[in-house]
């Protein structure tokens, strides 16, 4: 039998080596320019009081939201594409943050309140020497490795046991909540050696350079932004490959995937660990910009918020969660300044509205035919 010709479009798609089309790459380039050139200029060069000046507060806020966007992107990889809803990713974010925090605490040196080699909270607890887990904390390279390795190892072990037992869906989400809750309780204790319920704060320097200056702030912002763009490109490459299609297959019909001969364990475990490491890196970038880390970052509520950023933006789109993170956190900043009592009402209503009316999030809304009216019609269709 003569081998039939596949439709041209199919063949072309397979042959295409570029990740994004020309429009996509120009958007990425524009984003890089804004992050690396425009913002520094508007903040540092343009004088205060000028209409176009970007305030320090805005730079820090945007840098913070960029770190959140990295978490949302990581969540999209596991939830949007693989169907694993984790309500404990805040733990990895916080662990990365604590890793960086340890280094920054050591960098304070003898400039703390007690003028001692040890961090203030240890002097306060009458400790005489650094505990074992602080052994590497004055070497940046070592601590950077720990930022990646510790959450990665924890994610690997947890995922190994969970996925091997075929725990799925809601059960999995509940045990991730339990995991992050238990870790939060652990970190609240003073004996654990992470600052107890005060955490780490009052940072002075990073890599010997003072941390509270404008230049450092902008530099951290630029690094965070570039990391976000790099992670986005990496995620896009993953999702476009066969690996990405297997992930989506696992999300849609895991039994079929197993009976086709793929082992879902390896795929789930690899994407789960990757997303945990992404969150850890985001946490490490977050802490020097915000200046504080404490155990409330590990609370179940913080992790559930990551899920809502992804859902609001649009699952399985990669760009959606980034948009969602900016939207929700932007709204939060506005509400907590203008109408603080209404913030939780808004957030709660957002949760409800997104699940009922916007299953595909903001991006889905933009791509959907029929507009807003169609949304209501579809949402209130009778379900049996």
């Amino acid at each position, binding site marked *: 039998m003569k081998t039939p010709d596949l439709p041209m479009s*199919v063949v072309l798609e397979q042959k295409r080596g570029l990740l994004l089309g020309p429009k996509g790459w120009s958007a990425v380039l524009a984003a890089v320019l804004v992050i690396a050139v425009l913002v520094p200029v508007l903040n540092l060069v343009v004088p205060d009081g000028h209409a176009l000046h970007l305030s320090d507060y805005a730079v820090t806020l945007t840098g913070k939201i960029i770190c959140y966007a990295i978490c949302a992107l990581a969540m999209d990889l596991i939830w949007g594409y693989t169907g694993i809803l984790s309500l404990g990713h805040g733990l990895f974010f916080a662990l990365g943050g604590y890793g960086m925090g340890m280094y920054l605490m050591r960098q304070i040196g003898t400039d703390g309140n007690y003028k001692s080699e040890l961090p203030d909270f240890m002097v306060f607890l009458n400790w005489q020497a650094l505990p074992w887990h602080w052994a590497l904390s004055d070497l940046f390279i070592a601590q950077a490795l720990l930022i990646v390795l510790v959450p990665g190892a924890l994610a690997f072990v947890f995922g190994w046991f969970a996925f091997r037992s075929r725990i799925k869906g809601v059960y999995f989400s509940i045990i991730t909540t339990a995991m992050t809750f238990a870790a939060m309780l652990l970190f609240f204790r003073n004996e654990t050696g992470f600052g107890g319920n005060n955490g780490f704060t009052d940072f002075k320097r990073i890599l010997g350079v003072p941390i509270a200056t404008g230049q450092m702030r902008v530099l951290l912002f630029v690094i965070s932004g570039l990391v976000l763009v790099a992670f986005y490109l990496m995620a896009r490459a993953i999702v476009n490959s066969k690996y990405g299609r297997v992930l989506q297959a696992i999300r849609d019909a895991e039994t079929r995937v197993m*009976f086709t001969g793929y082992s879902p364990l390896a795929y789930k475990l690899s994407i789960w660990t990757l997303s945990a490491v992404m969150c850890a890196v985001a946490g490490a970038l977050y802490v020097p910009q915000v200046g504080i880390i404490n155990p409330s970052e590990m609370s179940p509520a913080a992790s559930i918020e990551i899920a809502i950023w992804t859902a609001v933006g649009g699952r399985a789109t990669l760009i959606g969660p980034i948009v969602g993170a900016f939207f929700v956190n932007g709204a939060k900043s506005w509400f907590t300044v203008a109408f603080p009592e209404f913030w939780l009402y808004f957030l709660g209503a957002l949760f409800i509205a997104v699940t009922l009316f916007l299953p595909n999030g903001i991006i889905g809304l933009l791509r959907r035919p029929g507009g807003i009216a169609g949304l209501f019609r579809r949402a209130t269709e009778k379900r049996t």
Partner: protein
Amino acid sequence: MTPELMEEGAKRLEAYALKRASAATASGGREAAYGRPTRWGEADFSHGVALYLDDITVSFDGFKALNALTLTVNVGELRCIIGPNGAGKTTMMDCITGKTRPDSGKAFFGSTIDLLRLTEPEIAQAGIGRKFQKPTVYEELSVFENLELALAADRRVRASLFSRLTGTQLDRIGEVLQTIHLLPEAQRTAGLLSHGQKQWLEIGMLLMQDPKLLLLDEPVAGMTDEETERTAELFLSLEGKHSLVVVEHDMKFVDQLTEGRKKVTVLHEGSVLAEGLLADVQNNDKVVEVYLGR
């Protein structure tokens, strides 16, 4: 060493070679019993048996879904399995593919692969493909992508990250698309196909896997007569190179498949009630009473 001795030696060698060549039968002849290397993980069909189930018992909360089921399917055979609902047909497939562990019994694929000790992906990689009663395809991916995922290739993570489809593989996908009559719909999202088309897509995915044993659970449920005939043609073309086990209710389809000369097995309450040619089974009193009706 004399010339006579050399002559004798050469003649002996020749006779031996001749004997070896002539003694090769379908199951390997006398030589099959000795010194034949088997490769780990690959099914060994030299004894002519593709699937061997012995005394399989499965009970759910006291209810015996399978009751000492014994079944043998030969290499290249097309076996049809019929029986009333609740007879244990799907449970039998679950046991073979590793979804359910039987309480007792043995299940072998070929002579060497113990199915009861492998996980589902391992069984699939060993060469057993299964088609479900309800079509399970990847609804959000396109038809092409569905087939691409089923392609018999390296299933590991690293391979998936960096793989690219070769020309041969593209051709194979095209071939299967043609066979299942979905070439015009190659780019359509699978969730938008009709029920019959989804069944075909799933059969196509099975073909892509190139399995040695195909387990087909009600493959023509919900198909039109024309589609049913095409499916029968497809299965008949597969027979011989692959072994097939088809579970069906549609007697006309079974008749098309068995062509009056292949064995049919009747299951009832978890064990084999009757086995034989379709005509014989249809006249069997027990079978009539339990399943076919008068």
